[in-house]
């Protein structure tokens, strides 16, 4: 098991290299003049060239790539062409916000999606099932940004129950950082007011993000539950007099969850990549917003680095899922 984990972690390395190559090639092959913007509107051509030299952008692509990669090894994600801040510093500031949002959304999706999916399967072809089916297709069809806007319109603009956006009331310092997750940090600090405040800021964006994965997990869970309920061993369990409750919550649940796990892993990556939209709507200071502004200004290093971080998190999440899968699924574990 440990060897398996180690090997999977080592496998991240080629993924990293592959991703950076692809991003580099894409970024460099495409048109655009990032230096032009960075130099500022009043810059002369000579100044632009000087800036390009400073950032090594006049070098051949492979030299640039090598420079980037060797920096990466030392935890240096390069420097933003635009702000000239080290990208690593920015990432350290933005990443916890995004992760807090993504984890909350995923948690919500799992906590609601799995039981709801199980219930839908148990009440198959009865009205709760139909209702959950319609609602989940609707949820999947709902653009996150539109949902975000509607939530904002209703709960922040008209009803004024929740904040419009942001992460914490700005005149106060956020809870002292251990994890960078305001909710967890405030619990650690025992500051319940801050906790509720952070939670209220988190609520709308997390809901907007979670709806689609929630629906998908629900559907997946429903499908796999139904599939498992058709398995021979469930028939055997019924034939030998086990109660439906025991069958559903013990025999079916574990098997059904293990097939939903993969979806959860995939959704983690999808959520990370998709925070862009929700963060834009809610002014959530995370890497999505950071990436958006970098993309608009064609600031290459932040874009590559954000993509890289998301990629690595995604791969890591899948390793975690694989391990969990192994824990739930004895056949895999012992092979």
């Amino acid at each position, binding site marked *: 098991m440990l060897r398996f984990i180690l090997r999977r972690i080592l496998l991240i390395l080629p993924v990293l290299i592959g991703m950076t190559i692809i991003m580099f090639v894409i970024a460099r092959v495409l*048109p*655009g*003049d*990032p*230096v*032009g*913007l*960075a*130099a*500022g*509107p*009043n*810059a*002369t*051509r000579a*100044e632009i060239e000087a800036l390009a030299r400073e950032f090594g952008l006049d070098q051949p692509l492979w030299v640039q790539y090598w420079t980037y990669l060797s920096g990466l090894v030392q935890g240096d994600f390069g420097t*933003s062409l*635009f*702000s*000239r*801040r080290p990208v690593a510093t*920015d990432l350290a*500031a*933005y990443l916890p916000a995004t992760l807090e949002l993504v984890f909350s959304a995923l948690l919500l999706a799992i906590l609601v999606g799995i039981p709801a999916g199980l219930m839908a399967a148990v009440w198959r072809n009865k009205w709760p099932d139909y209702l959950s089916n319609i609602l989940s297709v609707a949820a999947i069809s709902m653009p996150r940004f539109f949902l975000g806007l509607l939530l904002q319109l209703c709960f*922040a*603009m008209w009803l*004024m*129950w*929740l*904040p*419009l*956006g*942001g*992460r914490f*009331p*700005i*005149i*106060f*310092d956020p809870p002292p950082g251990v994890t960078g997750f305001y909710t967890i940090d405030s619990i650690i600090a025992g500051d319940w*007011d*801050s906790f*509720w*405040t952070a*939670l*209220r*800021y988190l609520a709308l964006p997390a809901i907007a993000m979670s709806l689609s994965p929630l629906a998908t997990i629900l559907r997946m869970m429903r499908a796999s539950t139904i599939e498992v309920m058709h398995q021979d061993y469930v028939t055997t369990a019924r034939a030998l007099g086990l109660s439906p409750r025991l069958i559903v919550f013990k025999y079916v649940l574990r098997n059904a969850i293990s097939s939903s796990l993969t979806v959860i892993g995939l959704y983690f990556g999808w959520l990370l990549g998709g925070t862009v939209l929700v963060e*834009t709507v809610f*002014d959530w*200071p995370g890497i999505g*917003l*950071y990436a958006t*502004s970098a993309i*608009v*200004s*064609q600031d290459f290093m932040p874009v590559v680095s954000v993509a890289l971080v998301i990629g690595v998190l995604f791969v890591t999440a899948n390793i975690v899922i694989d391990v969990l899968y192994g824990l739930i699924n004895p056949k895999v574990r012992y092979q």
Partner: protein
Amino acid sequence: MSTIDLKTLSRRSFLALSGAGLAAASFPQDLFAQSGRNILIIASTQDIPNYDPHTATGYSASFFLRNTYEPLVRVAGNPPEPVPGLAESWEVSEDGKTYTFALNPAAVFHDGSPVTAEDVVFSYQRALRLARGNSWMIRGIVEPEGVTAVDAHTVRFDLATPFAAFLQVIPWIFIASKAIAEANEGGDDSTTYLQANVAGSGPFKLRRAEAGALYQLQRADTAWQTGGGNLDGVIWQIVRESSTQRLMLQRGEVHISVDLTSEDMDALDGAPGVVRVIEPEYRTFSIKMNTEHGPMADINMRKAVAYAMNYQAMRDASGYAELMTGPLPNGILGHNPDLEVYRTDLDRAREHLAMTDTPEGGITLRMVHVNGLEQQRRWALIMLDSLQALNIQLDITPMNWPDMVAACQSPETFPDLFPVYQTANYGDPDNIAYAAYHSSRNGGWQNAVYHNPEADALIEAGRTEIDPARRVEIYGQLQELLVADCPDIFGVLEKRRLGMRDAVQGFAFTPVASNAIEAWPLSL
């Protein structure tokens, strides 16, 4: 809300209230005071990517630098006038080429060390050396060796050429501590250090920077400036949507909002606790035409388009704005309000079109607007609509700012039409005239292609002339020349739109860089 005793409202209950988003539409701004300190919150769409005093640009950076650094001279009032900054007083020679500034001996940097003439010399030389940021304003006028420290508190500038607006541009050259900068030189002329650290002598210092979210300034305990308000701190909060800014202002979650649209201003009309500031300023918004390449190189085509343009729609879509009369901002020194300019007249438009190579139209023009600039987008659509009357199609290309800047480098890549704002950094006709019409600016976005030796001569004359009457005459000629030449569709002057809580005291509007708020005079 009114039942809450504001005096006893603790941080705890404030958090509870703000977390709840507050049920009532009017969020008593006094609550902020109850948080223990007087902290002013300004909402803006723009991040502060860099706060090196000599490389940073943009109004958000200007806000930051104006509050954390001190220039020799500040600008205040309406019309804007130079007022003492680091310099208590100054003298100008007869020929306008020598300026001598006497520094305020009380002035100290945030680390407590006094501001000396050496720091001034260092800062000007560094700005010229780095050749970024606002240094273009003094380029060719101040040479590095022309700045000398006469003694510890006296600086002399020997200008390369007289410059009528000199005192108007030096508010934008900030003085950094030579000692701190040199201690953190870092092989890159301190740029790495200064873009993330403050070495200034302004009334505020940096407390907290969360890029993309907020920048919190705190009153410097070394603040030597006099006559300030009661603020303990200022927060520059980035709120990307103007409508959100407006709602936050209404709810009292911010004190000042600097990026409101005209629609927002309308919505704020009569909002309790909100003060609207709608003031004219010198920021022009025009549509540049490619006078060098393509169909617009033909003056008749330019005039045809200028006559076809729906000026009423332009004005309607601009909200609080007035149509420009000619190339210079209305009301600025030398502006001629009686100038005869183009107004919608389809007959004359067709007359001019008939004189072009394509008398029946049938061509497609290309207009670029910068991504994210809503007003530019609207104008592109208005242009599209207007040109349909001439049987001319319009191909609208949204471009990112850097691509647009790149496209400005040659007439071949410059689009046929390009709407652009020109912000007045200083209240002098030279600002717009030089930046927008002088051929030395060709290849840059402010004046990518237009060049006319006659205009150049007039602009240069206006710049180096010190006698105001003579300047009025020169700029009068320039305006007539430019209208006749028609390089631009002269657009509108948008009024500056600020929204403010009524608790903000001590605010005085000045029409230059008016959204880069100076917080020192303000109180809550």
